[in-house]
């Protein structure tokens, strides 16, 4: 069984500033991935960044980076130089493979507001 917890229902950041979204997880999988997905209002959910659990190096995608602490089961997302287009719901997720399927367990989400 897996659980993913996002303790911040809402966050706010000033444009051009940096914000960090928190996520903790628990999994019985020995090999797993962690993800951050972004869901803009009325638009599709898109992948922001992913981390392979066996890799110690934190993933980075342009302005987005993660702080992966495996022992603490923590996976936070840092957004640098925040832009108005970053405003969205952000979901942290972990996966487990079942056959050919990639089962995602999502956290409850964090709504990010970006102030101009």
């Amino acid at each position, binding site marked *: 069984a897996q659980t*993913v917890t996002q303790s911040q*229902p809402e966050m706010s950041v000033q444009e051009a500033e940096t914000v960090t979204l928190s996520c903790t997880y628990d999994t019985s999988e020995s090999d797993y*991935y962690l993800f951050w*997905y972004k869901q803009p209002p*009325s*638009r*599709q*959910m*898109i*992948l922001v960044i*992913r981390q392979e659990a066996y890799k110690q190096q934190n993933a980075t995608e342009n302005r987005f980076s993660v702080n992966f602490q495996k022992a603490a089961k923590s996976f936070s997302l840092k957004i640098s130089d925040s832009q108005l287009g970053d405003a969205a719901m952000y*979901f942290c997720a972990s*996966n487990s493979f*079942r*056959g*050919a*399927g*990639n*089962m*995602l*367990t*999502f*956290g*409850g*989400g964090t709504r990010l507001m970006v102030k101009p």
Partner: protein
Amino acid sequence: DAMVIQNPRYQVTQFGKPVTLSCSQTLNHNVMYWYQQKSSQAPKLLFHYYDKDFNNEADTPDNFQSRRPNTSFCFLDIRSPGLGDAAMYLCATQVSGANVLTFGAGSRLTVL
């Protein structure tokens, strides 16, 4: 161009009146998923297909069924919608063995 298309985007139905939501994909992905996302909650997996093999989550209510007539299309049927079924329904696809899902924009169901 949207690669996972869900129709309708908004659906209003009456209590107990069957409803069908559709999902089509141009990616030729062999795995397709249906998630239910209630307001301010995490998406919850209902079921998934690997090709034509159907996999139901243990806690998915019997009221929910799915069909996948071909690789491109997948349908979610709600036989007798209750007020508690009002939610956003998300379709997602994936290449077998990959770890990234491609989502549609969702179908928002309102039950009156």
